[in-house]
């Protein structure tokens, strides 16, 4: 048959094209897995909101104030007592409000509270006065609404994870109440309609920033009781007291709207009339929607960051999320080579972080030589916590080799094999392969075996302390260096690597206790603890501080991104120059 050659050729072309197509289509696993952030679960693919630094000051706002966004996941719950994920906290931050709110400079400022609270001498009692403000149905917001909501978040029947997590150890009696104790023992009392008195377990210097967190928002008791099981099941079964109101949300759907809340006490500041949100889980789909003009913003995760790096519409945003290598000193009851401090120091200095962020990540992330992220916490004078310690370690192959030689001698080995546990996404794979290559090249006699597992499996192995080195990460829960520093005290639930240093523990204890009332000394103590952890003990090896990139239309102005709690505020955002 004379056709047969042609047929073969056609077949060959076809087979090739399938391979090519398959190579091009591998982006669907992007999700949160490339960001093994144990603190904020699985959210990296979300809309990524906005970036204040990058939005140039626009001109006059347009007549039509509509913002179109995508979100990376559905809303699991809009009940502020139960919420535990970044999608919910982000929306809560825009449709509700607590005593305080993070402002455009990311400083907690009074919101429903009228001015700063009165704080007792010992720093344990806070008396808040509430401003006159209403729920979206017109009923006034009272101090009882706070008392009710907080007690509800601790009620074991409600089963909130974040209630106990945020309140236990901070608010007096929270631990007992969360375990079924008498709720009236809780240190939260509405003295009258407009006065809320909160008693703490210990002085908490960052308490104001906690008040901006979703778990501490008020709830109207009459409304919640009236709705019963249906409370928060859709946008009609909720009350709002923030800049916007949630509408068109059916409870399980992929779409919702936020509309300006006319009852909001500061409604005159709010310029946007409508925010249309659609859940789009595929990064490529979000980008196509952005390019078709249907959406005003789209997050760039994984390899998309590299692809669009030079696009003029890219906005970069540095997050206070840190990634580092955890060195496990004891595995299955036996000391690992990592129990030796020189071995740890050698490894932590033996990989080039600058190249890693420039070439492998290529998304604006910063090389990190510290634990507490930069541009995260500021003293009362506006000084970044980072300025106290600066860099505590760094890439230095020559010095790493010296430490390595000493370490090997001390443990009496010439060759060491270690397992590096990391995520299973494409990006995590590339990063870990790079680390392996760097470490094996710079440290003679070291063999690194990579183990790539899904996020959930990594958490289990972490819990069992069944790894040598782990590529891990952490994002903050409140705006204070402590949220990072106390991860590594002896026996802490994130430690799980048998690190223990009495001096470190006592510094953290001091910062939590007697120094709580002396901000300067407290910062010094936490800085010293950080120095011991990284410079002296090399208990962990910092890798990078994450940045994310997104495409954003030039007419979108002033979306504010926040370091913790809700990721973004749309209160101050507006559209300018779209027409």
């Amino acid at each position, binding site marked *: 048959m004379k056709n047969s050659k042609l047929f073969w050729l056609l077949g060959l072309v076809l087979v090739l094209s399938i391979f090519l197509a398959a190579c091009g289509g591998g982006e669907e696993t992007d999700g949160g897995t490339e960001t093994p952030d144990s*603190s904020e679960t699985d959210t990296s693919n979300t809309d990524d909101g906005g970036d204040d630094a990058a939005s140039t000051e626009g001109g006059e706002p347009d007549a039509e104030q509509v913002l179109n966004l995508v979100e990376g996941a559905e809303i*699991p719950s809009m009940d502020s007592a139960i919420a535990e994920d970044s999608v919910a906290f982000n929306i809560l931050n825009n449709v509700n409000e607590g005593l305080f709110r993070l402002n455009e400079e990311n400083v907690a400022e009074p919101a429903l509270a009228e001015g700063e609270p009165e704080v007792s001498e010992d720093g344990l009692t806070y008396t808040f006065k509430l401003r006159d403000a209403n729920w979206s149905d017109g009923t006034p917001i009272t101090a009882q609404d706070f008392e009710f909501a907080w007690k509800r978040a601790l009620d074991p029947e409600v089963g909130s994870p974040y209630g106990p997590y945020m309140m236990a150890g901070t608010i007096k009696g929270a631990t007992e109440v969360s375990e079924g104790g008498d709720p009236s023992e809780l240190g939260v009392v509405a003295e009258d309609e407009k006065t809320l008195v909160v008693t703490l377990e210990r002085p908490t210097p960052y308490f104001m920033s906690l008040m901006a967190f979703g778990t501490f928002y008020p709830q109207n008791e009459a409304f919640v009781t009236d709705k019963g099981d249906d409370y928060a099941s859709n946008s009609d079964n909720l009350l709002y007291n923030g800049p916007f109101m949630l509408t068109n949300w059916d409870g399980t759907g992929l779409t919702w709207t936020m509309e300006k809340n006319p009852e909001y006490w500061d409604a005159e500041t709010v310029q946007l009339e409508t925010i249309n949100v659609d859940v789009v889980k595929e990064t490529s789909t979000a980008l196509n929607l952005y390019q078709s003009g249907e959406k005003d913003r789209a997050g760039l995760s994984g390899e998309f960051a590299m692809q669009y790096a030079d696009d003029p519409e890219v906005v970069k945003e540095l997050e206070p999320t840190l990634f580092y290598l955890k060195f496990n000193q004891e595995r299955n009851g036996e000391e690992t080579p990592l129990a030796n401090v020189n071995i740890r120091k050698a490894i932590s200095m033996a990989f080039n972080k600058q190249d890693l962020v420039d070439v492998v990540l290529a998304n604006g992330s910063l090389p990190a030589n510290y634990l507490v992220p930069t541009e995260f916490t500021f003293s009362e004078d506006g000084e970044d916590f980072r300025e106290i310690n600066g860099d505590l370690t760094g890439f230095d192959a020559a010095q790493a080799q010296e430490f390595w030689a000493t370490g090997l001698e001390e443990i009496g080995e010439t060759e060491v094999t270690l397992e590096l546990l990391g995520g299973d996404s494409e990006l995590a794979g590339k990063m870990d392969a790079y680390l392996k290559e760097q470490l094996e090249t710079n440290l003679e006699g070291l063999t690194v075996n990579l183990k790539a597992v899904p996020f959930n499996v990594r958490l289990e192995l972490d819990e069992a302390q069944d790894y040598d080195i782990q590529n891990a990460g952490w994002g903050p829960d409140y705006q204070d260096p402590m949220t990072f520093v106390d991860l590594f005290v002896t026996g802490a639930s994130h430690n799980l690597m048998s690190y223990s240093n009495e001096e470190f523990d006592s510094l953290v204890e001091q910062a939590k206790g007697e120094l709580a009332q002396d901000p300067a000394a407290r910062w010094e103590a936490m800085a010293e603890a950080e120095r011991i952890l990284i410079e002296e003990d090399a208990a962990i090896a910092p890798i990078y501080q994450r940045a994310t990139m997104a495409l954003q239309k030039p007419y979108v102005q002033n979306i504010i991104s926040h370091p913790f709690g809700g990721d973004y505020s749309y209160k101050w955002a507006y559209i300018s120059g779209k027409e």
Partner: protein
Amino acid sequence: MARYIGKRIIYMVITLALIATFTFFLMKILPGSPIASADKLSPEQRAVVEARYGLNDPLPVQYFNYMFGLVQGDLGVSINQFKGANVTDVILSRMGPSAQIGFQGMVLGTVLGILLGMIAALRQNSWVDYSSTVVAIIGISIPSFVFASMLQYFLGLKLGWFPVALWKDGFMSSVLPSIALAMFPLATAARFIRTEMIEVLGSDYITLAKAKGASGSEIAFKHAFRNALIPLITVLGPMAVGILTGSLVVEQIFAIPGIGEQFVKSIMVNDFSIIMGTTIFFSVFLILVILIVDIMYGIIDPRIRLSGGKS
């Protein structure tokens, strides 16, 4: 016939119970906890939250509680995907779009596939035949997410003929996802019909029809096609499976609020009750399709006996 169907229904129930049991225990082996922030909580705090969802009971107790609820039609409540929402409500709210694109994809794919297969068979070894084979191979081998992405990029973004994604423009929103889902049934049907037609066209009664002077189209449609259609029914089951699995990715790519899209997420976040509910829902659907196919088979092809020799 009634006896046969009754027996099949009993088997169905047994199958379902086995699937539910198997899925239940398999799911419990999944690493991770359905509590999203479990790694932050102290063991005591975790125990309180787990107690709220009955996750701290011994496994057999959890199993019997679940099966007991299932018998009464209670699929439980979602643990973290849609905290507290009734699983039945979740599935019902997501069923519409999935059913629509699934049905459209199935019909479109089967009809086009039959046409393609028939033309290929009638013009055997011509370029038409070869191109239909190529289409069939492409349809089987290109993963639906690649095909869906290509449709989205070219027909949606570049040409602007259809919405890029989302479920907002009624029928127009369903076109691209339906086409993406249609590829698998199209390819399957085309291959099947071609083979069957060629076989039938070579059989004695066709030769007889020709000898009697029947026209070409009469032979093709009246004699050959009808007989070639019967075996196609057997692949309706696998096709339905293809549509279901295809929907998992296609719905995600087009951001359609369907069941498949939601199912993927539930597995990622270990939402036990949603995983169970959706698995059972999918299983019921498939078992029903298979039952219907078997019954249809008996009706269409009298050579196949469903219930022993007596009827």
